[in-house]
């Protein structure tokens, strides 16, 4: 029956179950020696999808290692939707749980998070970014009550590793970063128009934007960051993100 055939076909391809292929052969699959063509097509095409989404990870580990990582990932997490722009969301978490990779290259999962953020930002819904002109008519005493929304394409990634330096790298840094606190980097990914920006953030800027992700007002966000980072300059930070398109044009404002 068709449901059994399809279950066995799945087990014999992504499930890598030789017994399932034998069952198909016993049921009269002809030219069964060619079954491997399907397994190949599935793994190779999905490896290509992952390689396109995680080009730096692929480059840094090399083709052979990436093929092994992709193979294991595909077998454990085959796509759940026939829309491959969304395939790979679990890859960073998979890498974090794959001991041989993280023992050798402990920054790999965070680097994959940056690459996935770039991928998501690229395909995310479009929206008009907030610019300074949108706020021109606002009385200064109402600024503290502004609740900015982050632009839908914005992703914030905090890492103990210099992931912004490594993103787009052609080769592993020498010497390899040891992950001490001074190597930590915070990254903003956004796509206000057609191009994806990958921006290195100062710790204060990262905390400031993170506050809006939690729903804080401008007043609350500024107060929280000012206490934590003496170098933080509110007007420089705000002007930069208004010029760069980090916020959604659709903001709310608390009654003063």
């Amino acid at each position: 029956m068709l449901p059994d055939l399809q279950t066995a076909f799945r087990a014999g391809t992504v499930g890598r179950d030789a017994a399932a292929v034998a069952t198909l052969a016993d049921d009269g699959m002809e030219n069964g020696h060619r079954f491997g063509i399907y397994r190949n097509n599935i793994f190779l095409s999905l490896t290509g999808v992952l390689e396109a989404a995680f080009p730096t990870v692929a480059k840094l580990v090399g083709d052979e290692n990436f093929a092994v990582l992709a193979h294991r990932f595909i077998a454990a997490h085959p796509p759940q939707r026939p829309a491959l722009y969304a395939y790979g969301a679990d890859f960073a978490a998979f890498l974090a749980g794959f001991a041989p990779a993280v023992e050798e290259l402990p920054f790999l999962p965070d680097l994959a998070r940056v690459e996935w953020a770039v991928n998501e930002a690229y395909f995310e819904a479009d929206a008009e970014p907030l610019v300074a002109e949108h706020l021109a008519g606002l009385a200064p005493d109402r600024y503290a009550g502004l609740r900015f929304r982050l632009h839908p394409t914005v992703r914030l990634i905090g890492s103990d590793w210099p992931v912004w330096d490594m993103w787009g790298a052609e080769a592993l840094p020498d010497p390899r970063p040891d992950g001490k606190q001074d190597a930590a980097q915070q990254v903003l990914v956004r796509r206000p128009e057609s191009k994806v920006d990958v921006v290195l953030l100062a710790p204060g800027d990262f905390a400031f934007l993170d506050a809006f992700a939690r729903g804080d007002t401008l007043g609350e966000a500024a107060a929280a960051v000012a206490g934590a980072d003496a170098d933080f300059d509110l007007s420089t930070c705000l002007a930069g993100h208004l010029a760069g398109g980090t916020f959604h044009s659709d903001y709310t404002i608390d009654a003063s």
Partner: protein
Amino acid sequence: MAFDHGNGSSGAFTREPVPAAAGVGLRHTHYNEFLAGRPAVAWLEVHSENYLCPGGPRLATLEAIRQHYPLSCHGVGLSLGSAEGLDKDHLARLRALFDRFEPGLVSEHVSWSTTGGDYLNDLLPLPYTEEALDILVRNIGQAQDAFGRRILIENPSSYVTFAQSTIPEWEFCAEAARRSGCGLLLDVNNIHVSAHNHGYDALEFLNAIPGDPVGEIHIAGHADTEWDGRPVLIDDHGSTVKEAVWELLETALSRLGPKPVLMEWDLDLPPLEVLLGEAGRAQALLDRLAPQRRVLDDVA
């Protein structure tokens, strides 16, 4: 079954028929050529699943290019042969895509790719049985209802067959179209590949296909390889069209009359001129055969 042929969408495009002329597949690699100029080709086809993202440059690019060409949306992920039925969210996303871009043709495959919720990203073969035919016809009906329009189904290329099959592939495809009311997308490269791999006569396939339901023809390249020490043709869409497939195309067009013909290329894409060259050869064939058909029609 009642189809909604009205242009109910409030979008920027109106539905525009795909002409009985040569078109090419639109791929990311060639976006810039299509944005910068207006390459001479009668129509374009995209893989529907490449445009299901919420936003971003891909959709914006298709929007810009669609202004100048009739469009066909060719699906590779609906899994019409799935015993477990179709994914309703996927149907709704496809419907939204069709409402936005108003393609003149919408097509899918006589194959499956989803089981147990996993999407296997390949066009997998069906056994040609009454059971599979019932499932396929039911799923086509569900898709046509969800889209509010008729679809075309494409004969696949395959590497294995099943002894439980009781229906020849050509009858299976034609019967699925007859029972569901859908049309056929005749892929003459797939006919050639499957005929070679399974040892049947490509002309027997072609001659069994009724002309009226055929709404489109595909041509593409394939690879002549060995698998496990034995020869096998792989449908990789990675080269120019082989002479044997051009011959099948000529036979098909002579028999069926003029149809939209699409040149597909998916692997190691060449410069656009190479694709346009293949489409040009198909167009020359269409032009050469058209007057003959008219004479025949006049005599009849």
